[in-house]
């Protein structure tokens, strides 16, 4: 045992001896040798007046406990793991920019689709499909001889029909509206006529 302790003393003074690796293995694996090494260290620190005001005998234990605690919380803290993660980052870094660019492009395309539909510009394929359906439906003969709604839409409104067929009647009607606006509850001016026009158009 004395031989071990002498080797320890020698090692502490930074002399390697015959087999320094074996001595170091012994120290790391033997708590008693570690305590002895620490006491040797305290002796030297005290002689050089380097001891702190108050020695915390558990200092190194609390440091190591915190290191283990943090390593458990984040496995990357382990030095080997951090090396591996750094290496993998170095390897993957060139692709990171591409990944970001691809993500941005994907999001842009995803957002563009609904915007395009909302703005009334459907996709060309959809247009052609819808158009084909419409044409098919339009060409179908409905049972009972009913006329398709699109076919029932008049080419000209009533007002335009009157203007074309009875121009005199149109003038009379206009004069009637102008003369009777004073009896209207609404604001005078174009609004009653607009109402009539609106009513006429809806017919």
């Amino acid at each position, binding site marked *: 045992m*004395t031989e071990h*302790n*002498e080797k320890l*003393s*020698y*090692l*502490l*003074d*930074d*002399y*390697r001896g015959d087999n*320094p*690796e074996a001595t*170091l293995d012994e*120290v*790391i*694996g033997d708590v008693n040798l*570690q*305590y*002895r*090494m*620490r*006491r*040797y*260290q*305290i*002796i*030297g*620190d*005290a*002689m*050089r007046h*380097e*001891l*702190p*005001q*108050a*020695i*915390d*005998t558990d*200092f*190194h234990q*609390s*440091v*190591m406990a*915190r*290191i*283990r605690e*943090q390593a458990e919380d984040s496995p990357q*803290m*382990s*030095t*080997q793991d*951090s*090396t591996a993660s*750094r290496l993998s980052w170095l390897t993957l870094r060139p692709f990171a920019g591409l990944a970001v660019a691809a993500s941005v492009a994907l999001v842009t395309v995803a957002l563009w689709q609904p915007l395009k539909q909302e703005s009334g510009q459907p996709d060309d394929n959809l247009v052609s499909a819808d158009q084909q359906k419409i044409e098919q439906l339009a060409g179908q003969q409905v049972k009972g001889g009913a006329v398709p709604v699109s076919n029932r839409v008049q080419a000209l409104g009533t007002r335009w029909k009157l203007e074309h067929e009875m121009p005199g009647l149109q003038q009379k009607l206009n004069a009637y509206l102008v003369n009777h606006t004073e009896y209207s509850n609404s604001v005078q001016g174009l609004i009653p006529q607009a109402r009539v026009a609106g009513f006429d158009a809806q017919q």
Partner: protein
Amino acid sequence: MGTNLLDADLVKRVQAGDTGAFDILVQKYQHKVINLVGRFVSDQAECQDIAQDAFIKAFRAIDNFRGDSQFYTWLYRIAANTAKNHLASRARKSANYTVDVDDAEHFEGESGLKEYANPENLLLTDEIRATIFSAIEKLPDDLKSAITLREIDGLSYEEIADVMDCPIGTVRSRIFRARDVIDKELRPLLE
């Protein structure tokens, strides 16, 4: 004398994943780091906490240590920066940190500092110093000279052998025997 070969070996082991090797480095440098931090921060409890943070930062960054400088100079740099950052952070916080008068009695600071410099630790440290110096006084002259030249004057074994006019093996043996005698006195205090 070697050039911190022990540190280099320990660092290599830590970099290879041997956490126990870092424990040895902590034990070796804890007092020096605490003293260094003590030049920036007067409070003993804060010193201990900052020193602890410095060791943890060193452990996390040890893969970046390539041995271009000595390990302890690298560690001291981390400790000094940690202390400076702590002071800067404390200055920022104190600007808008208030404690209610009623709570002041129980206030221990934001970091919940532990009371390291308690009377027991202060007394123990004084006792350790007294025991060591008393044991040195009782040493035979050859052992006392050898350990003093080594620990206080920092001479290498070869230089001590020159000064004491004896073989290096004898120096090695004398230094160990001196430590062993002092350790026998010191051990009961630390167990």
